């Protein structure tokens, strides 16, 4: 029985009169690959924002590694081990590919402002370690050759990959991926699936994946939760979810009742 990494207990959030997420229960253990799916507007990105403390729930509680996330700010939560990518890519446009990843390593840095200014031997060693770390990460997706390119000049698919690498650079225990396959062609998607598995195994992390592409979700997730209008309507293995009538109804609409007859 794997330890619980992330736990959502009856979590709800309201914006004005609108309930974006209602009474959500979700558990993710160590080294699990979980999918979160649902029609557009179901509340999936909102769930991400709740988990990463961008929003605070109006009801319920969220626990990460046993500790409540209630009064934590997003950057503190990242220090504890949650990292994410964004639905609309949010790379740092002023920086190169290399520096985008490098920026994400600084939360675990050994050196602060004094060392940066003094530039002693230990600082230089630290920077060399960062260099090695970043290059290794870039290597996962083969992006080393782009290292000095401005990050936003990369082709769309590579930008998505860079975002994943950047999140990985924070040494997370839980990685949240928001539609990583969006805009990719079938070959890229297969590569992505393989690489997500690779990352999960190599770095021993858990992954929570929001995706619309069923091939990707069904292909790699061990477990899938389905949201509709902010409520979890189903949870189970890919096979179970595929066959669940509630899920089918949510995506395709109710079976039309026969007219007349």
């Amino acid at each position: 029985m794997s330890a619980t990494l992330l736990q959502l207990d009856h979590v709800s959030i309201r914006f004005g009169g609108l309930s974006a997420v209602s009474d959500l229960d979700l558990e993710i253990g160590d080294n699990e690959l979980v999918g979160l799916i649902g029609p557009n507007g179901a509340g999936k990105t909102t769930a991400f924002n709740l988990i990463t403390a961008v929003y605070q729930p109006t009801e319920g509680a969220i626990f990460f590694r046993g500790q409540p996330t209630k009064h934590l700010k997003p950057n503190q939560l990242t220090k504890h081990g949650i990292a994410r990518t964004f639905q609309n890519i949010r790379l740092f446009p002023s920086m190169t590919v290399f520096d985008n990843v490098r920026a994400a390593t600084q939360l675990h840095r050994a050196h602060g402002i004094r060392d940066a200014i003094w530039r002693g031997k230990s600082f230089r060693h630290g920077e060399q370690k960062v260099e090695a770390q970043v290059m290794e990460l870039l290597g996962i997706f083969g992006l080393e050759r782009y290292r000095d390119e401005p990050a936003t000049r990369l082709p769309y698919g590579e930008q998505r990959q860079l975002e994943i690498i950047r999140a990985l650079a924070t040494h997370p225990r839980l990685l949240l991926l928001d539609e990583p396959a969006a805009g990719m062609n079938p070959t890229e998607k297969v590569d992505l699936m393989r690489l997500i598995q690779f990352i999960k195994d190599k770095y021993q992390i858990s992954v929570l994946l929001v995706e619309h592409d069923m091939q990707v979700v069904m292909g790699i997730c061990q477990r899938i939760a389905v949201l509709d209008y902010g409520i979890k309507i189903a949870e189970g293995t890919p096979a179970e979810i595929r066959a669940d009538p509630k899920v089918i109804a949510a995506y395709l609409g109710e079976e039309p009742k026969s007219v007349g007859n």
Partner: protein
Amino acid sequence: MTEFLQQLINGLSVGSMYALIALGYTLVYGVLRFINFAHCDVFMVGAFVGFYAGLNVHQTSWGGGVLIMIAAMLVCAALGIVIERLAYRPLRDRSKLSVLITAIGVSLLLENAGQLVFGPNPQPFPEIFPSRTFEVGGLVISSKDIVVVIVTASLLAILQFIVLKTRIGTAMRAVSFNSQAASLMGINPNLIISVTFGVGSALAAAGGILWAYKFPKIDPLMGIAPGLTAFIAAVIGGIGNIPGAALGGLLIGIIETFVKGSRYSTWTDAISFLFLILILLFRPAGLLGKLQPEKV
């Protein structure tokens, strides 16, 4: 007690003018989410238009005064529209900060051009409306203050009518909520933005005329101090909020008048700004405004 009432009347009068200027800031912020730094200099131009127009109207009369005010409002409305078209519209897609800097540039341009064209020395402003003073139970009330308050109230009423009851006003409100959606409804945002600038600038001009009427010395830098105070008023009331701007203007006018009359008068500017900072820290939406959360 009479001292208190005297200051109060003064405060209301000054506050009304601040309200007029503040409305311009708030209207523009409402549709563009941007602080028009050059607004206070349009106020100054209005006063100078009144100055030159006043040279051509030989008697002090109600009709003449109203004509002068309308002339100033029209000229400044045009000025505001031109500024928006030339300096702000090309930057519509860029960051807020670049438009802010440009606005600062326009403001400096107007001030410096004013100093070259009108000369840097203060000029006396003609008495465009007939005036007299009344004595009521120990209080000395100048008709100037009465005129200021009445004109301001009328303009406010007209503005409220336009914004709430006319189609163009509804269009203005639509654009301030969501410019894209408004354009999908057939509203031309550029037109509405121009109209907004026009209206805001006209109000600034009216404020300028009234200010020059009450304090008859004008110079090209006269807009800076009242402009800053009026901006603070707009923020205190809730920037983007029309009744808020009026409320903020009156509030700040009264407070400032009392501080100026006290022994802390040299700290007046600092106190206004302190107010601003406190409001922004503890109630950033202002007294009547609503917070806009950021979408992630």
